[in-house]
C-alpha cells in the first residue's frame, strides 16, 4: 500500500528550502540593482527608494511575502540542521570533509547564521527606523531623505566592515545554494551545467557589488 506524500517528508522540506532560496535570490538581484543606483545617481536612488517605500503593492503584498520567505528559509534551515545532527549521534574521531565537498557546501549553517546576524543589524539600521518614521512618528513622506540616510550608515568603519564580511559569507552561501536549490527541485538536464555556472557568477558578482556599494559610500563621504 502506498504511503501518501507527507508535508514533513525530507524531500519536501528540501524543496521548501530550495523554493524559498530561489525567491530570496531573486530578491537579492533586485536589492543589489536598486542599491547600485546609489553609486550612479543620488536623485534616481531617492526616487526608486521612495517608490519602494510607499507603493502599496510592495509594502502590503510583496514585503509580507518576502518576510515569509526569509522566515521559512531560516526555520527550515534550523530544522534540517537539527535533524541532520541527530542522524549521527556519535561523531567520527577523524572526519575529512574537505576531501570530497566544498567548504561552502559543508558550512551553510555557519554562513546562514552570519547572514541572519547581518539581517538583525540591517533591520536595526534601516527597517526599524523606517517603520518608526512612517508608522510610529507618522512623519510626512520625504522623497529626498534616502540617499542621506544610506550614506550616514556607512560613515562607521566598523559597520562598513561588518557589512563587507557578511556579504562575503553571503557569497559562500550562494556559491553552494544556487545550484543546490536546482538539484533539490529535481533539475538535472542539459541546462543544469549552464545554470550552475550562472549561480557561481551570481555568488561572486552580487556580494561583490554589495561590498563595492558599502566601500564606495564609506570612502566617498
Amino acid at each position: 500500500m502506498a504511503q501518501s506524500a507527507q508535508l514533513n517528508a525530507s524531500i519536501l522540506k528540501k524543496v521548501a528550502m530550495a523554493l524559498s532560496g530561489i525567491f530570496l535570490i531573486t530578491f537579492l538581484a533586485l536589492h543589489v540593482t536598486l542599491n547600485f543606483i546609489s553609486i550612479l545617481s543620488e536623485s534616481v536612488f531617492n526616487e526608486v527608494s521612495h517608490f519602494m517605500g510607499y507603493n502599496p503593492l510592495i509594502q502590503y503584498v510583496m514585503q509580507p511575502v518576502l518576510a515569509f520567505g526569509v522566515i521559512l528559509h531560516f526555520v527550515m534551515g534550523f530544522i534540517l540542521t537539527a535533524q541532520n545532527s541527530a542522524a549521527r549521534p556519535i561523531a567520527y574521531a577523524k572526519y575529512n570533509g574537505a576531501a570530497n565537498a566544498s567548504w561552502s557546501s559543508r558550512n551553510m549553517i555557519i554562513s546562514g547564521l552570519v547572514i541572519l546576524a547581518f539581517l538583525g543589524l540591517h533591520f536595526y539600521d534601516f527597517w526599524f527606523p523606517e517603520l518608526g518614521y512612517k508608522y510610529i512618528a507618522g512623519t510626512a513622506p520625504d522623497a529626498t531623505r534616502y540617499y542621506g540616510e544610506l550614506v550616514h550608515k556607512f560613515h562607521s568603519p566598523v559597520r562598513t566592515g561588518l557589512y563587507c564580511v557578511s556579504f562575503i559569507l553571503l557569497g559562500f552561501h550562494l556559491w553552494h545554494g544556487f545550484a543546490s536549490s536546482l538539484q533539490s527541485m529535481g533539475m538535472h538536464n542539459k541546462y543544469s551545467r549552464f545554470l550552475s555556472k550562472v549561480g557561481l557568477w551570481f555568488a561572486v558578482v552580487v556580494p561583490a557589488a554589495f561590498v563595492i556599494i558599502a566601500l564606495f559610500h564609506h570612502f566617498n563621504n
Partner: protein
Amino acid sequence: MKLTLKIWRQKNAQDKGGIVEYPIDGIEPDMSFLEMLDVLNEQLINRGEEPVAFDHDCREGICGMCSLFINGEAHGPDRGVTTCQLHMRMFKDGDTIFIEPFRAKAFPVIKDLVVDRSSFDRIQHAGGFISVNTSGNTIDANTIPINKHDADKSFDAAACIGCGACVATCKNSSAMLFVSAKVSQYALLPQGKVEAVDRVLNMVHQMDLEGFGNCTNTGACEIECPKGISLENIARMNREYLAASLKG
C-alpha cells in the same frame, strides 16, 4: 611498512566503545587494507587478545560489506573502490591510520567495525522491486523495446551495491544516493513505471522513518561511492517524488 593504527573497539551494541591504538610492523605496500587487518588480527590472536571484528565477504570490490571509515573517508583515501580494493601503498611508512565503523543513527554498531545496515534492506523492501507474475506465463523482458540511453542509465543506477559509503561520508548521514539509485533503476524502465508512484513514496517514507539525515547536495556521496553512482539519480528521485506527491 610500520604503522600506528587507531581502531574503534566496541564489545557490543550496548558498549560505549573507544579508540584503541595498535602499532603494527611488516606491512607490505601491495597488501589490501583488509589483508593488513588480517595481519593485525593474527598478531592479536597470538597474543591472546580479542581480534578486531570487521565485515568482509567477496574481497573483489562488489559485495559492499567492508564498512570502514579510514582516515576520515569512507573506504579510505582512494576513489571508486571498496576497502578490499584499497591497498597499503596509498599510505606512507610511519603513518597513523584511524579506522572507524560507518557512523549513522540508522547504522548502529554491532561490534568493533561491524555495523547493522538492515535499514537499507527495509527501504528496499518498501518498494525497491517490480511485481512480476511468475505463474508460468512470464514474458521475456527483452520483448519490450527500451531506449538504450535509458537502459544504460538504469544499469548505472543498478550498479549500487548498497555498501552505505554514501551515508557514512555524508555530513548529514543522508541515504538519498542509495535510495535514489534504487528508485532510478526502475523509474527509467517501462517495467518499473507501473509501480513508480508507490515505490518512491514508500521508499522515501521508510528512509525518513529509519532516521537518516536530509540531503544538502554537498556531493560527497558521489565522490566516495565505490560504484560512481551519480547525483543525477537524486535529482531524478526528487522529480519522481514531487510528481508522485501530486498523484498519490
